[in-house]
């Protein structure tokens, strides 16, 4: 396959990354290499094989649906780049 810098830019945008042109060119070449290697999987016969998404064998333990206070608001907000003491602050979302 031929992974282009334009494709790299499109996927980067989906991942909310904004990469400069020179990085996109380099990334496209590396993606091409890596995907060519990954394509070796095509040779593996997986007819009727159930996908294994994780090695967990137990059932997810359930608990009562009860609200529990596990941490304090100020502890959480203390890590925020910007807050007003009650909420996270982000750039304006709604115009007007």
């Amino acid at each position, binding site marked *: 396959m031929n992974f282009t810098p334009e494709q*790299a830019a499109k*996927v*980067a*945008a*989906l*991942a*909310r*990354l*904004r*990469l400069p042109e020179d*990085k996109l060119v380099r*990334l496209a070449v*590396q*993606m091409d*290499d*890596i*995907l060519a*290697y*990954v*394509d*070796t*999987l*095509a040779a*593996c016969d*997986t007819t009727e*094989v*159930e*996908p*294994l*998404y*994780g*090695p*967990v*064998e*137990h059932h*997810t*333990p359930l*608990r009562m649906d009860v609200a529990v206070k596990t*941490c*304090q608001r100020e*502890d*959480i907000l*203390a*890590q*925020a*780049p*910007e807050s007003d003491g009650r909420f*996270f602050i*982000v*750039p*304006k*979302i709604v115009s007007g």
Partner: protein
Amino acid sequence: MSGIISLSLVELRAKLAAKEISVSQAVSACLERIEATEPKVDALLSLQAEASLDRAEAMDASGPDPDKPLWGVPIVVKDAICTKGVTTTCASKILENFRPFYDATCVERLKNAGAIILGKANLDEFAMGSSTENSAFKPTHNPWDLTKVPGGSSGGSGATVAASQCFAALGTDTGGSIRLPASFCGITGIKPTYGRVSRYGLVAYGSSLDQIGPMARTPADCAAMLQVMAGHDPKDSTSAPRSVSDFVAETASRRDLKGLRLGMPAEYWGEGLTPEVDRCCRAAMDTATSLGATLVPVTLPHTKYAIATYYVVATAEASSNLARFDGVRYGYRHQDSSDLRELYELSRTEGFGEEVQRRIVLGTYVLSAGYYDAYYRKAAQVRRLIRQDFLDAFEHCDVIVGPTSPFTAFGLGEKTGDPLQMYLADIFTISLNLSGLPGLSVPVGLGGDTGLPVGLQMFGRAWDEGTILGAANALSGALPGLGEPKGLLE
């Protein structure tokens, strides 16, 4: 090197309990060693010197506590694991100033068992790498040869233990990140069965692959650490609700390998091994035989697909896990963004390093519409076949053995230009994470050509960490020790 820092964790623990050594003496010895060796190895990202000395003093005042199995033992924690009030950076600019307000479950358990956390260890950013060169802050150097990498991603943990700065360290293993640095640095490290140790408080990379595990001087030291860390945690739904056996007793009780069938997979013992690794590991097999083990040929035929499978599964999970770093709730934020999208994009672009960005893009691609079936679903199918290989092999043997890496530690900068070549360093470690089974790396000697440590892996059946720890203990007890790391001798 002599005195306190030359003891194993188990030896130190006994001397602390008998008051032959005070906790303050143990902590001071480590801090002095850190001061002497850290300029050479750069294993640590932060040091809690004063807090550790204060804690030691308080513990000495109250005296040994027989209910605390790690009472007074100084350890180090990989900086991808949350420590309350102590910076947890994941070696990334995006978390440079992040101070968790809670401890990871395993950290909490270690503290409750009396361990003292001296500091946090360097790693490849978000545990993505095999050399610790992807750290946003500094590369770590191998104590055996300062021009070589310590392996990765838990390279700081490997180097700090090998340099005798502490008595054990926590690592994390997503594709070999405990076992590879253990091998390169000449120490023991175990990746427990998936679900054995709670991942609560571990900054997630590949959630279906990540496990926290101990890295230490000996298998018995690892057993002492794992005993405290293991067990169900309601805060992690993937942690297994099952009892924990007595690893310490199982490890100590095995003095030979009688009755054990060691499976040697053809795929791990064939071409591709450097001659020195081949010689060293085969000599260890001779010793195993003399200890009573039976060697059995086994096959893991899907090994050749493991790296491709891993880089689809791990990057897919990483792209999803790392979506949380958006400059809003914690971590780095680009200032003066005009809208929310720009805030996300510029915070992530400026905060993440190149390898992390590469894996996020690869993961986003393999999960995107039109490619999901061809890549992600296909890889998950091959993953089942890889696991089945192990289950089939364990029909014929009790432990699977093979080299941890085809080569000894490589040079700093040697593989950084070619991501695919770096990924291939994990050829022998990655299958285990895909399968969820436990495995360890134990040193079996120094390579005849490079003089650098060679590690041997032992894989076990699910939940059977006791058998591989015991086998590693018996084998390493019968092999000559490695001696002191040569990079720190002058």
